[in-house]
């Protein structure tokens, strides 16, 4: 039974957001006996509400509140009001994530040391190491049921993977398999195995894919120590005269505002809303935004170097059948500057249904070059390219000077320019991705530009020194002792791996820390 907490109960920990970060942290705290309230801006849509309908689900669960864009990135031109494709619902973007669950590599925690002083980049080493993270990665993989860990077999390869694998073998790539996926390859944890439905991005109809919406959140609610309040969009974090956080103001689905008091606040609203909330919570004591004495709140926005390669063959592939992203080539995910860039990238299978392929194959394109490709839809194979991008201080989430949301709060503007290293990496990835398909007889390949960002990172970054970032190695604000950040915005650098496993691992680690500090009377 879910616990209802009073608005004036100042003993609760308030978690803002219920995705990979908040949806892990909240239940972890509750299981430790800590009274926890999760405030989720979106609604609660259970598995029975999902449909295999790309545009229908997009309209139902996406974060579509007003945002603006600037900078030279192509997303600002193709999707000027939609810089990110993320979810506004209980479970957050774990509802639509693909399931790829990869650990960061040792060198990726030491970006500045490993890559050196890259001009224009604002690189920094993480204040934690892979060794410190390993026990938490292990717990996260067990909790999420990641394939190829904990003796869980890999998923079977679908048609799209088989094309990738044949090309990888011909090119001599060694690390190609069906991935480490938080999708059950066999029944586990009360959930069945993958039925190869496809539509991983539209919410998993079988529940084989991990999402706290139907895993940790109900378990947390069953403890009686967790309340998940949906349709509760936090618009301001408040503090007392001593500079400690005292509560939050949120708007319910009717726009009525409420004040929930709190013992501590953990911010997990993804890399746009988390810095936006800190900036919108400026006060006379924190004139540049809450926890922003460094000036780094909202800065160093990273979105991964991304792109896709689709290829057409003379025979059918039917790539849309089966698990969307159960296929990976990892050979390029190394730091080998002889390729003309630092950091590395992964190649992962990807398919879109016909409706999304029309919108995303080459956004804005029309005419016979485009429709000739669409005519070959069932003969296509596809892969996503995801690599480490360079943090740049000028890539930033800021408050729009004039545009306001439905609650009167300034909307976020997202500014992004590719770093020359990102461009060099993308060109290399396009070349290698095309080569994979050419090796098995592609008749045409398409270097497809980035989609609206699904991996949003870095805007409240972790740093050893307070002047370099926003939070410490535990995700605790450098400025405010009972304010935490618990999402991907704490990433110091982006690494080449999909971020969810690391967000979940950090949240498990943070829950341990919070409980420890409470038991010692420090929080």
């Amino acid at each position: 039974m879910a616990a209802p907490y009073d608005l004036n109960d100042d003993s609760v920990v308030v978690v803002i957001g219920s995705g990979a970060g908040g949806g892990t942290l909240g239940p972890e705290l509750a299981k430790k006996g800590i009274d926890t309230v999760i405030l989720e801006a979106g609604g609660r849509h259970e598995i029975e509400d999902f449909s295999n309908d790309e545009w229908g689900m997009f309209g139902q669960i996406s974060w579509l509140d007003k945002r603006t864009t600037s900078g030279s990135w192509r997303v600002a031109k193709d999707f000027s009001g939609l810089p990110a494709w993320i979810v506004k619902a209980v479970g957050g973007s774990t509802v639509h994530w693909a399931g790829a669950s990869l650990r960061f590599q040792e060198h990726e925690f030491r970006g500045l040391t490993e890559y050196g002083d890259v001009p224009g980049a604002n690189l920094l080493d993480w204040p934690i190491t892979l060794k410190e993270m390993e026990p938490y990665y292990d717990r996260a993989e067990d909790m999420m049921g990641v394939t190829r860990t904990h003796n869980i077999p890999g998923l079977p390869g679908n048609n799209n993977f088989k094309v990738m694998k044949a090309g990888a073998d011909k090119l001599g790539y060694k690390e190609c398999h069906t991935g480490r996926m938080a999708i059950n390859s066999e029944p586990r944890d009360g959930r069945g195995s993958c039925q190869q439905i496809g539509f991983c991005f539209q919410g998993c109809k079988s529940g084989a894919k991990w999402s706290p919406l139907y895993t940790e959140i109900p378990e947390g609610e069953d403890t009686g120590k967790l309340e998940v309040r949906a349709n509760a969009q936090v618009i301001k974090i408040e503090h007392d005269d001593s500079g400690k956080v005292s509560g939050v103001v949120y708007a319910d689905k009717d726009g009525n505002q409420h004040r929930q008091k709190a013992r501590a606040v953990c911010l997990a609203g993804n890399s746009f809303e988390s810095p936006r909330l800190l900036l919108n919570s400026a006060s006379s004591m924190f004139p540049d935004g809450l926890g922003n004495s460094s000036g780094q709140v909202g800065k160093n926005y990273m979105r991964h170097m991304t792109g896709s390669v689709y290829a057409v063959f003379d025979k059918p592939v039917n790539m849309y059948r089966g698990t969307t992203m159960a296929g990976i080539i990892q050979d390029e995910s190394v730091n080998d500057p002889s390729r003309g860039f630092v950091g590395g990238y992964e190649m992962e299978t990807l398919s879109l249904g016909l409706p999304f392929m029309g919108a995303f194959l080459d956004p804005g394109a029309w005419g016979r070059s485009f429709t000739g490709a669409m005519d070959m839809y069932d003969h296509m194979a596809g892969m996503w390219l995801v690599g480490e991008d360079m943090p740049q201080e000028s890539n930033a989430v800021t408050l729009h000077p004039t545009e306001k949301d439905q609650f009167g709060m300034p909307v976020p503007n997202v500014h992004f320019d590719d770093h020359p290293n990102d461009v060099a990496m993308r060109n290399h990835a396009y070349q290698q991705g095309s080569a994979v398909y050419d090796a098995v007889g592609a008749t045409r390949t398409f270097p497809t530009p980035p989609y609206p960002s699904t991996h949003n990172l870095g805007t409240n970054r972790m740093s050893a020194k307070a002047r370099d970032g926003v939070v410490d190695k535990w995700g605790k604000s450098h400025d405010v002792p009972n304010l935490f950040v618990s999402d991907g915005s704490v990433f110091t650098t982006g690494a080449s791996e999909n971020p969810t496993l690391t967000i979940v691992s950090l949240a498990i680690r943070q829950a341990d820390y919070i409980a420890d500090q409470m038991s010692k009377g420090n929080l």
Partner: protein
Amino acid sequence: MRVLDKREKVSRRGFLKRSGAAAVGLIGLSAGAGMVTGPNGAWALEVKNLKPETMATLIQMARDIYPHDRLSDKYYVAAVSGYDAQAGDDAGVKDMIEGGIGALDTMAMAQHGVGYMKVGWEEDRVALLKQIEDGGFFQTIRGGLVVSIYNNPEVWPLFGYEGASAEKGGYIARGFDDIDWL
């Protein structure tokens, strides 16, 4: 491997019967008296708010933007027919479309001596569209079409796309890994 039959299942003549349209028009679209009809009367559309000539030109424009030779006109008609009702609800939409098509016809007349619909080669019509592709009218029409054409479940089988699969048990027993030519 299991492959789909991508042929259209409904005959054009069958569609004609169901739509109740008279067999008029010989080449291309024809318009008049509140009706837009396809060649050989393959389809007919009643318009109430836009000029029939405007709707006929819009349908041709839709095909020129996303030309799929295996798609019969009815899918392009379906993709733009909603603009007639929108034009009735919103004078701004009506002005945008009538104005946009009017300007396109004026350009065609100046460069080819005939209206857009009568310009014979697709290549020449596309050259006209290229001149307006950065404008609001073209972008609105194109942005609407990319959803209304490819999100129409009736066209999915023609591209070999099967749509929703959860209700059918996914593809675990229906060919997720049946590729046989590698």
